[in-house]
């Protein structure tokens, strides 16, 4: 039981007992002041109810707290004693009611879903762009939320709902962050000792392989032809983790899809693979535990950026320095004032230093960049872009009267509002700029990639495109967590939605060099632990 409720019941019972004895004492020591004591349980009840909220299971205790008021109204020993006894009995009776009621102090997950859904339906700015069918989504997910029993199931239901939008800015953050591991264990499924990746030629390779699989002839790089009697990519479709992970771009989804397959199956799974001599073989792999840790490790290796702190510089070789940018954020003061000159001066100082030392390349490592402020994007873009004014993006035209973004009735397109520009300073004009991205380079990282990609000395490199989610975010605080989604519209020069994919599920953000995930890449990443993407990026600009 909740501590507040235990306190309430204890206080009320004690008060009832005290009032019982007071009834007798008040007869001997006459004073009209005694009657005031009979409103104390009601006051306790009111205070704790406001602090902790109402709970239907406590109804007997609430009534029990009001009954002593009879002793306030009637100055009669018998009435006061009876009221005190009834009050105590009702208050104590609330204990079994609370313990037996499954809904006691439970979060109303269905209400949360309805509130979040209605809020999103009202304010989600990409609904038409993505052809969202609100009614069918509601019909599909309402029963799922009705079936939810605990925080873990609630989080999974939200993840699946969010994934429907293929928008990196649609997400749910539960209040109880401790459930993350339990959720991952449940959705990623079983561990059979290996993870899978899709090679660039379409074959599926085993990676992150447990040593125990050597006896079957499976090691890192082994080509997997079948998973549990089916194509591994078809198996991935059965993965709950896959359906809970909404990629904003279909190419990015294809890159990671195989990872999810390796968690599907029962107590054992039959795996078809090509052995070292080129023969097709089968092995029955027993379940070793939960797949979540292995899957996360695999994704971490695929996505891994330069290991250093945010906005720290690392010298990759004698010609190349790397600025690691983990988020488009600096410090809280800059965020509050919008003045990022301290950050800008710090970067410029290092850029000048590297120029003086005849460095030729600067790598902006945006892998796993979680986004942030467009002011930070501007600061970085200004330093590395050619001199002059450059286009950033256009705000949607806001209709004050209607309280929404204006659309052109004739074309159905959004009406363009204010155009935004930034001024390049060309502080690295003599050298090359490489931007490293992955599917987790989202939001403001998407912005930076998009606005710098066209410049002559800039090359964007990745196994995948950036996330492909670039609109502004809004959200609603629900009882079980925070629900966010795209609500502030950004358009590109043509008046189309800036970056975010529409119904075609193809984002408008691309890369210059797509590094192939081939056997060499798998060996470099999963055997040698090298930063293969960085190596390939440097080769590309040589």
């Amino acid at each position, binding site marked *: 039981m909740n501590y507040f409720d235990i306190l309430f019941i204890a206080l009320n019972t004690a008060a009832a007992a005290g009032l019982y004895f007071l009834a007798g004492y008040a007869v001997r020591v006459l*004073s*009209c002041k005694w*009657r*005031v004591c009979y*409103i104390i349980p009601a006051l306790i009840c*009111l205070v704790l*109810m*406001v*602090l*902790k*909220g*109402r709970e239907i299971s406590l109804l007997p205790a609430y009534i029990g707290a009001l009954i002593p*008021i009879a002793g*306030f*109204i009637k*100055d009669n020993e018998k009435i006061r004693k009876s009221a005190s006894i009834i009050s105590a009995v009702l208050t104590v009776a609330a204990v079994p009611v609370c313990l037996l009621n499954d809904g006691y102090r439970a979060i109303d997950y269905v209400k949360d879903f309805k509130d979040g859904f209605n809020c999103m339906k*009202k*304010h989600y*700015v990409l609904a038409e762009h993505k052809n969202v069918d609100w009614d069918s989504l509601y019909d599909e997910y309402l029963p799922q939320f009705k079936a939810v029993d605990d925080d873990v199931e609630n989080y999974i239901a939200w993840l699946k709902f969010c994934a429907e939008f293929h928008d990196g800015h649609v997400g749910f953050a539960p209040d109880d962050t401790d459930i993350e591991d339990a959720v991952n264990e449940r959705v990623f499924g079983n561990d059979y000792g290996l993870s899978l990746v899709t090679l660039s030629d379409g074959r599926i390779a085993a990676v992150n392989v447990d040593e125990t699989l050597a006896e079957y002839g499976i090691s890192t790089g082994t080509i997997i032809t079948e998973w549990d009697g089916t194509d591994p990519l078809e198996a991935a479709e059965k993965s709950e983790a896959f359906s809970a992970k909404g990629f904003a771009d279909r190419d990015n989804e294809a890159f990671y899809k195989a990872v999810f397959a390796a968690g599907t199956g029962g107590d054992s799974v039959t795996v078809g693979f090509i052995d070292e001599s080129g023969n097709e073989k089968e092995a029955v792999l027993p379940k070793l535990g939960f797949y979540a840790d292995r899957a996360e490790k695999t994704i971490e290796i695929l996505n891994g950026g330069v290991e250093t702190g945010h906005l720290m510089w690392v010298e990759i070789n004698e010609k190349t320095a790397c600025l690691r940018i983990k988020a488009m954020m600096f410090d809280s003061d800059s965020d509050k004032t*919008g003045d990022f000159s301290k950050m800008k001066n710090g970067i410029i100082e290092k850029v000048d230093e590297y120029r003086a030392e005849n460095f030729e390349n600067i790598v902006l490592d945006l892998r796993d960049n979680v986004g942030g402020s*467009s002011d930070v994007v501007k600061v970085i873009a200004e330093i590395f872009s050619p001199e002059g004014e450059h286009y*950033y*993006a256009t*705000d*949607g035209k*806001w209709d*004050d*009267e209607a*309280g929404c*973004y204006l659309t052109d009735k004739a074309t159905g397109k959004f009406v363009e*509002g*204010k155009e*935004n520009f930034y001024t390049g300073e060309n502080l690295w004009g003599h050298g090359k700029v490489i931007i490293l991205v992955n599917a987790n380079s989202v939001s403001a990282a998407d912005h930076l990639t998009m606005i710098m990609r066209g410049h002559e000395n800039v090359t964007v490199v990745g196994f995948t495109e950036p996330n492909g989610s670039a609109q*502004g975010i*809004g959200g609603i605080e629900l009882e079980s967590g925070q629900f966010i989604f795209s*609500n*502030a*519209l*950004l358009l590109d020069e043509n008046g189309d939605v800036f970056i975010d994919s529409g119904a075609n599920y193809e984002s408008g953000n691309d890369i210059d060099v797509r590094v192939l995930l081939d056997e060499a890449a798998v060996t470099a990443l999963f055997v040698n632990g090298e930063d293969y993407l960085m190596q390939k990026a440097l080769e590309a600009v040589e």
Partner: protein
Amino acid sequence: MKNIIKSQLYQLRKERLVWIVFIGFLIIPMSNIFLEGEMVLMGDYPTQVMLSEMGMLFTIFPLMFLFTLVGIMCCGDFMDKTSNYELMTGHKRAEVYFGRVIPCIIVGLICFTVLVSVPIIVNTAMHGWGTKLDVGEIVLRYTLMIFPIFRILCTAIFAAFIIKNPYILMALGYVTFAIGGISGSGMFEERMSPVLGMTNLNMLSTFESWATYGIEDDMNYIYDASLTAGQIASTIIVSLAAGAVFIYLGYVFFHTDDLN
């Protein structure tokens, strides 16, 4: 009872403390309008922004005045034994009780209306209303506030007849103000419901807002101040019922009070 009411109103007109507190709580929101609206936001402070940001504050400041009013009207006469003399001269207890309660509630509601509406009117005259907030919805919300205020007044009156000391009651007003200040925070689970008069005021003075923004942080706001039928009904019913209960309990207590 008519004479008691008349004497209470006369006494109130001459009570300097009440006037000082009344004018004081009229000046506080006015200073906000001047400082925030003129000095900080350079006139860009339409009433829709003021109400969305400061709505609760405008409603809880007058509460301190209401407790002062109740303290003076209902407790003052216990200090100088006027209530005792009224009873000795043949007035019934009900007359003495309701002779104070009725004018206290009426004057309290009128003063609250003045204290809340004057800043809104002044700010609208100075800075305009804004285009995004429906006037009708706000009028409905602020009209409905009369009900929780009635309930809070009745609670204060009940407390006044038990405490019988205007200064303690005024201190209680400051406690109520403090509770009002934190009632909208996460400390209260029941912060937007008619469970307490304060939380009901919170519910009425807080309305849904939504903001979008551009690259340069140009903000766009949407306000939705509409109320559901359930919110309106619960505000009226719970407030009237709770108010009536407190008036009854106050009378029950006063009816058999020793009045030493």
